[in-house]
């Protein structure tokens, strides 16, 4: 009975996690940004940002992380200046 409860708890915890895929740098470069899909795409990009949890100071990042973080932030801000209503 105890084991069943543990398994059930683990399953429920798994269901609550968002299944967002962390994009590679190249996938990020070719990300199909669209204003019409802004809400969903921003959710996805911000989830990647949450998972990556980069340091706010770019000087504390290694070159690869710095490039990824730069690309990710540029992609996120794209919606702010391109999708104004």
């Amino acid at each position, binding site marked *: 009975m105890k084991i069943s409860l543990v398994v059930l708890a683990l399953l429920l915890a798994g269901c609550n996690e968002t299944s967002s895929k962390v994009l590679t740098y190249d996938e990020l470069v070719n990300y199909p940004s669209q204003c019409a899909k802004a809400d969903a795409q921003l959710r996805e990009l911000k989830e990647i940002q949450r998972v990556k949890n980069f340091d706010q100071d770019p000087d504390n990042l290694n070159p690869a992380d710095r490039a990824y*973080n*730069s690309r990710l*932030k*540029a992609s996120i801000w794209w919606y*702010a*200046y391109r999708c*104004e209503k």
Partner: protein
Amino acid sequence: MKYLILLAMFLSSIVLADECKVRSASQLSNERAVGPITNLVKNKTYGKCVVNFDITVDGVTHHLTETESGMEQEESLCYYARERARKNLLLDLGGKFSTEAVTICKEGTTTIQKIKKGDHILESEVGKSKIDKYFTYNNARCRMFTERNEFKGELAVYHGVICQIDNSDTNWMVVDKW
């Protein structure tokens, strides 16, 4: 006599502690009648965009060509090319220089600090970005910026977003930097 010495020491400490510096920056402000972009032709290839278009400034039509290449989407590259061509034309045409300055006093030694997220700055303290349009974010007027700074003995390029605080001409906040 003792009191005089104490008073003199107190006054000198105030003068030494409150070191002030003037932060000022100049920028070209164009007061020209700039018309819309017409006859725009975009030639997009992988990682590159060449734009050709006409633009009328103060009643004179100019034909501009500009190329932008990079890792970004071609449509973004076309946008940058268009903006750079327009900006370069306006720079070539000239205008009036305006200077804004604030005096900042703080304790201790004054060293040039890198601008970081959350800092309050003058708008002209940070350079223009390729994306030089203003946009609204959280009901504030914002723009992107680009700055170059030394990092570990090399030149590093930083990007970010600043937003205006309370409609002040001089107070802007760094809301993001990368």
